[in-house]
């Protein structure tokens, strides 16, 4: 399928969805006993696409949204950096020291099984309502994804590649640098989209549950006053935000994963 055709079909999905939303929320299908028009999608609950777009544009034009975007971006970035670095470090450590891994195994599983949302209030208590409670919430999400991937990546280096590297004269340190590290890194990158997404989730959920700034805060505020248009506008901005970040991640990983099979195309 050509690129243009695909793009056209993708746009059509949005057009159809928005049209249904628009018609359902603006065209009356009857009149209630009190004389008010009845809609399939009552605007009070669903707003209208046009109102949402106007609100999004207004927020960007007036500039009120930038501060919140910045806060969420900082939180997500910090969560990703801290969670990523600690995940790589501990993943490596566990993979190279089976005893440590065995001892901590049940605790890691327990921690990972815990729904992170329940941690949000306690983090707010510990780290305050500023950015750090959100950062740490994001860290608990990002850490486990990166950790498991690195752990797996290091342990699943094919035995024959390892034997070959040793026969080529590599010592432990050289094995780490030339074999384990690249193998782990490829797993980290394959999970990059997920972990970046989770960093944003951590930030937004944290903001949602208690904060004074950020995209989650915006949405929460709008919900508090039954401003459905505001809620949808916040969600649209959040979606654009995540799409942009995802695009950046794709740009970053492309040159780093050229050695991977499946990337070659006939020309």
């Amino acid at each position, binding site marked *: 399928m050509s690129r243009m055709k695909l793009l056209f079909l993708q746009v059509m999905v949005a057009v159809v969805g928005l049209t249904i939303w628009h018609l359902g929320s603006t065209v009356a299908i009857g009149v209630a006993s009190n004389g008010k028009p009845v809609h399939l999608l009552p605007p009070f609950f669903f707003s209208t696409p046009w109102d949402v777009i106007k609100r999004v544009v207004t927020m960007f034009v007036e500039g009120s949204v930038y501060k919140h975007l910045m806060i969420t971006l900082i939180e997500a970035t910090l969560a990703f950096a801290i969670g990523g670095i600690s995940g790589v470090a501990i993943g490596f450590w566990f993979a190279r020291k089976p005893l440590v891994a065995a001892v901590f195994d049940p605790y890691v599983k327990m921690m990972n099984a815990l729904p992170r949302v329940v941690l949000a209030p306690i983090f707010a208590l510990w780290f305050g309502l500023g950015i750090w409670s959100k950062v740490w919430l994001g860290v608990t999400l990002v850490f486990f994804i990166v950790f498991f991937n690195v752990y797996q990546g290091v342990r699943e280096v094919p035995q024959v590649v390892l034997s070959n590297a040793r026969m080529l004269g590599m010592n432990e340190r050289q094995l780490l640098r030339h074999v384990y590290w690249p193998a782990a890194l490829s797993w980290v990158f394959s999970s990059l989209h997920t972990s970046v997404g989770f960093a944003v989730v951590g930030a937004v959920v944290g903001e949602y549950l208690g904060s004074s700034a950020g995209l989650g805060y915006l949405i929460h505020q709008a919900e508090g006053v039954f401003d459905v248009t505001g809620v949808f506008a916040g969600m649209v901005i959040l979606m654009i935000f995540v799409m942009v970040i995802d695009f950046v991640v794709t740009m970053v990983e492309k040159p780093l994963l050229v050695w*991977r099979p499946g990337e070659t195309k006939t020309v």
Partner: protein
Amino acid sequence: MTSASTNVPAVALKGVSVAYGFAGGGRYEAVQPVDVSVEDGEFVAILGPTGCGKSTLLNIAAGLMPPSSGTSLIFGERLSGLNTVAGYLFQQDALMPWKTSRDNVAIGLEVRGMARAEALKQADAFLKKVGLASFGDRYPHQLSGGQKKRVALAQVLVREPKILLMDEPFGPLDAQTRLIMSELLLDLWQADRKAVMFVTHDLDEAIALSDRVLVMSAGPSSKIIGDFTIGLARPRDIAEVRSLPEFHILHNKIWNCLRDEVRKTYGLSDSKAGAAS
């Protein structure tokens, strides 16, 4: 034989056996105590049915696994840990997929402390020798099976090992590519003779390449049941050597020895029925 001044064999496995213990307390003897010796400059093929433990012997000579009993002597010295004077060509893909062909070849020199520029220069020269001069920037997944083997061969040979260990290196390749690779190997080896331990299950390949063929019996408890000297003149031409009458005589002799063992692995018949056919 081209063994230089000394008479010390390059590889001498003395009374080496392999047994695996199971968690339940059982014991599986893979290889009975065997003696194998490879002179310096000698090309020895180890031939046997699948699962007879011939690769295991290679891993012991490489120092990748310790024998259950017996000792391995490398140029007269007892081997403990990895065999650092040996190069090992594996059956499976063993290249580092995240490195280009050039880097894969150069890394064996770099880890020795050679400057990167010099290592890359030598890597390029070796890639040229194996006919991949213009493939230095390719990653392994961009190469065919035969090309990967060539890179692997360059990777091993560029370090100038004194002993070459090969574990059915051309096994996964198609018949034509195998022939080409055997030719390449023989050309490279004839230029600079090293001790070679070459494990294979292909009788033709074993005769065409080697100075001596050792036949192993079917597992478990395999042992060496035949030791044939291949007197074919060197340098050899892989394609021509197969049409010589001596080749067929050797082929028949070794096949008689090997046939019963191959049958045993497939449970076709006991040795009596095999001999009668």
